């Protein structure tokens, strides 16, 4: 009984924390900020807004959002599947590195990847310079990067490591016997693959595709930088409605449409997820990797070269560009620390302040998110273990976990701004970022909590441990690594976020991603790379610390 009251209390707190900004935003959007209007008038206003919104804008941006999300997802899957297959079948040098690329979307913020792509694929970028040196045709990529396909390529490259990682893990655990059984029954290689392997990995592919689709659907920074000429996504429309038109109602309508689509996607994703759990649960130990032979080596080397040239290259170019000082009237092209110096000491030198404020704000937001996430995942865990009446807590909490995937961060940011005392941007920023990040924490920790064999807890109890002692020695001990990973993850999300600070338009606070965005927008790419390197190092160090914690745990 006491547990149930506690669980309901936790649920109510998280419910209020999650839904308050949404309600505040919608209330402000449809009923005005201060004066209370009658119910009928409110509904009339709401309907009026729908009529007034130019249909073409909504349809156009919705179509563009869907189009770019589908294309990006398809390309990411196409790029990732061969990698997944190779890493799940063969033992070769660079295999682990290929798998660890999956950390990039999590530990490097999108703005950094955008910068990497500009500095590599851009018209002054390394790749086009290399091409021009070889072929003498400078400016090959001028038309691609800032177009629909440029956007799709960036999204795909940012997300394909997720496919490699997830599908490879699945393939490693799928037994080879159904494929072999098909062969012994007379099926040729392709038919045997279609019967023995494909049905097992399809739910996994669907799940990865769903996640990538949702990420691309809500993509903001990338579209803002690359997609401008080709079109805008719903998320960018919301930003523009809020920042440039100050039209809350328009933003609200966009966000409602966006959320409806996202919810549909999430519903499909959860269905696929359930299926994946069912199939994977039955599998035994991971298969052994084999040494590649002949043609297989060729494929592996080809794939690795492709990844190095087109994916690792951009990341390296950040380092090179950060130290490259472009030629000016007084000096030729050279390498040095000038870009860093200019950011630290020159005119508009915000780097030190930005580093400190990013560390402070993201640190607090990440801590808050980790705290809420852990409380939430334990509540789900106990609610699922406990009596039937508690199941509603688990269900509600599970639904809340999908919130950041279904609601525009801009809406959350503005909602918190309306709630916070004196409309203080700093507290709104922390609360909004914590709200966006906590479900990632609860999902990461929850997964490792669910993976614990309940018999271990029972075994500890049979050996004389009290319930609390058993909890501390079994559950808590086991989830420590995932708590570290989740906290690092939360820090990376909050430290790399451009959307919320840009939306809140804080003049009093500069964060590193914000500087990065502004320097990029001002075409000060080398300085942007220098700031990006600092941001990358910051998130990289946090992820290294996480590994250390995991090792110790």
């Amino acid at each position, binding site marked *: 009984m006491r547990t149930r009251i506690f669980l309901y209390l936790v649920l109510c707190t998280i419910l209020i924390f999650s839904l308050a900004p949404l309600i505040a935003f919608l209330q402000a959007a449809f009923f005005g900020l201060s004066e209370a209007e009658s119910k009928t008038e409110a509904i009339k206003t709401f309907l009026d807004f729908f009529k007034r919104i130019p249909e073409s804008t909504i349809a156009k941006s919705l179509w563009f959002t869907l189009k770019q999300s589908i294309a990006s997802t398809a390309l990411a899957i196409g790029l990732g599947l061969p990698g997944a297959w190779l890493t799940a079948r063969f033992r070769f040098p660079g295999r682990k590195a290929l798998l660890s690329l999956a950390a990039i979307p999590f530990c490097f913020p999108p703005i950094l990847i955008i910068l990497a792509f500009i500095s590599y694929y851009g018209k002054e970028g390394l790749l086009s310079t290399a091409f021009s040196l070889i072929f003498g045709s400078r400016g090959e990529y001028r038309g691609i990067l800032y177009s629909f396909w440029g956007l799709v390529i960036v999204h795909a490259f940012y997300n394909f490591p997720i496919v490699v990682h997830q599908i490879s893990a699945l393939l490693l655990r799928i037994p080879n*016997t*159904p494929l*072999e059984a*098909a062969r012994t029954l*007379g099926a040729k290689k392709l038919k045997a693959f279609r*019967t023995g392997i494909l049905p097992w990995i399809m739910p996994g592919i669907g799940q990865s595709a769903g996640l990538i689709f949702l990420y691309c659907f809500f993509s903001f920074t990338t579209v803002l930088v690359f997609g401008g000429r080709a079109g805008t996504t719903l998320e960018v429309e919301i930003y523009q409605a809020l920042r440039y038109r100050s039209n809350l109602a328009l933003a609200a309508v966009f966000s409602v449409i966006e959320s409806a689509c996202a919810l549909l996607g999430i519903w499909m994703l959860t269905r696929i997820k359930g299926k994946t759990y069912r199939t994977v649960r039955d599998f035994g130990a991971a298969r052994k990797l084999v040494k590649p032979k002949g043609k297989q080596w060729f494929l592996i080397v080809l794939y690795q070269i492709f990844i190095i040239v087109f994916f690792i290259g951009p990341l390296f170019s950040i380092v090179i560009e950060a130290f490259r000082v472009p030629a000016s009237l007084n000096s030729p092209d050279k390498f040095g620390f000038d870009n860093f110096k200019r950011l630290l000491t020159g005119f508009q030198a915000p780097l030190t302040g930005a580093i400190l404020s990013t560390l402070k704000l993201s640190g607090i937001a990440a801590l808050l998110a980790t705290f809420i996430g852990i409380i939430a995942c334990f509540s789900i865990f106990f609610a699922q273990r406990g009596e039937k009446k508690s199941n509603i807590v688990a269900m509600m909490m599970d639904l809340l976990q999908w919130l950041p995937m279904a609601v525009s961060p801009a809406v959350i940011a503005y909602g918190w701004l309306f709630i916070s005392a004196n409309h203080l941007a700093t507290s709104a920023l922390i609360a909004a970022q914590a709200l966006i990040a906590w479900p990632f924490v609860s999902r990461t920790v929850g997964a490792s909590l669910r993976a614990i064999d309940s018999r271990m807890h029972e075994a500890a109890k049979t050996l004389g441990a009290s319930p609390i002692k058993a909890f501390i020695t079994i559950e808590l001990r086991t989830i420590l690594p995932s708590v570290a990973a989740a906290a690092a993850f939360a820090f990376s999300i909050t430290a790399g976020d451009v959307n919320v600070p840009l939306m809140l338009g804080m003049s009093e606070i500069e964060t590193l991603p914000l500087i990065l965005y502004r320097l990029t927008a001002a075409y000060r790419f080398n300085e942007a790379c220098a700031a990006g390197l600092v941001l990358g190092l910051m998130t990289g160090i946090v992820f290294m610390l996480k590994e250390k914690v995991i090792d110790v745990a």
Partner: protein
Amino acid sequence: MSLEVKDLLVERNSFVLRADFSLEQGKILVLLGPSGCGKTTLLRSIAGLEMIKQGTITLNNLRIDKLPTEKRHIGFVFQDLALFEQLRVRDNIGYSLSIRNEEKRKREERVISLARNFKIEHLLGRYPYELSGGERQRVAFARAFAADPMLMLLDEPLSSLDAPLRREMRRFIRVQLSRQQLTTIHVTHDVEEALDLGDEIIVMRDGKMISRGIMSDFEKKPGSGWLARFMNLGLVLPIIEISASKESQLLDIMTPEENMFQVSRNLESNIDNALEKAMCLYIPFSAIKIFRKNNNEKTINVKIVRYLTSTPLVSKLVLTLPSMQDYFFELPMPESDFPMPAEGTEIEISIDQSMCQVLPDIPL
């Protein structure tokens, strides 16, 4: 010969498998051995699922070792059965027929006839995950039979079943295979299963075939203490001291508790060289008698650990040697009128020394 495997060599990392054997049409050969001895690898090599380094495999006078798996005309039942979970039982059984583009009506007839044979007619519309362990086994067998294979390969398909069901399935498979006159290789690590199913048994160890025959062959000539222990053929005692004069046909052997035996030389090769290896004394169970003393026979003291009377058909005695209390052996309970000594007491057993053999502890 239906199947001939000649000079087969398979290398995988540090593991080396060598095999050379043949099998008559319609016979069931059991590959018996502990885990990791290479029996599954051998089966997979015959099926073409494992690359072979050298050797030939001939099936019904056709060399198949260069053919891809799908052209070898073999049936394979996997340990995990490998049913296609996304297909209904009907489609699982008819899979090979659809690959061969069999006419739909014929295919259906064949599936139904097999299902009737395997008593799974009522399950044709179900998915594999809706079936019990025994039902899944039957589906896997029916699917393998549907391909009309020339050779059936069974890779411990019964290992996941509980004991009574396993026994029942064993008999059922035996009947089905005999009815079809299908040449079969069955892999197992279970001696009882091997004896029950096989016309012949090949025992494998560390990638080698160390012995071939039927039960009485193994009992007469186990060849090593390891095999006698593995197949539970008799009592295997370590030898503390062994001496033999060149002229004498008898070896003087001392085992624990200073039990002295006189055993005839059964090693053809130079005894001195063989003795450099660890040796043991093999006493077949048929050479041991309990509660019956015979002045000509050697007696040793053993301790009664337990009376196993729970099995209705066979009552057994679990015994141990007083100085080797972690070594147990079982003997069938003799029919006797006098009262049985209590558990924990020592009794004498008599041994016919002429049946004992000195063997290398592990296969040479």
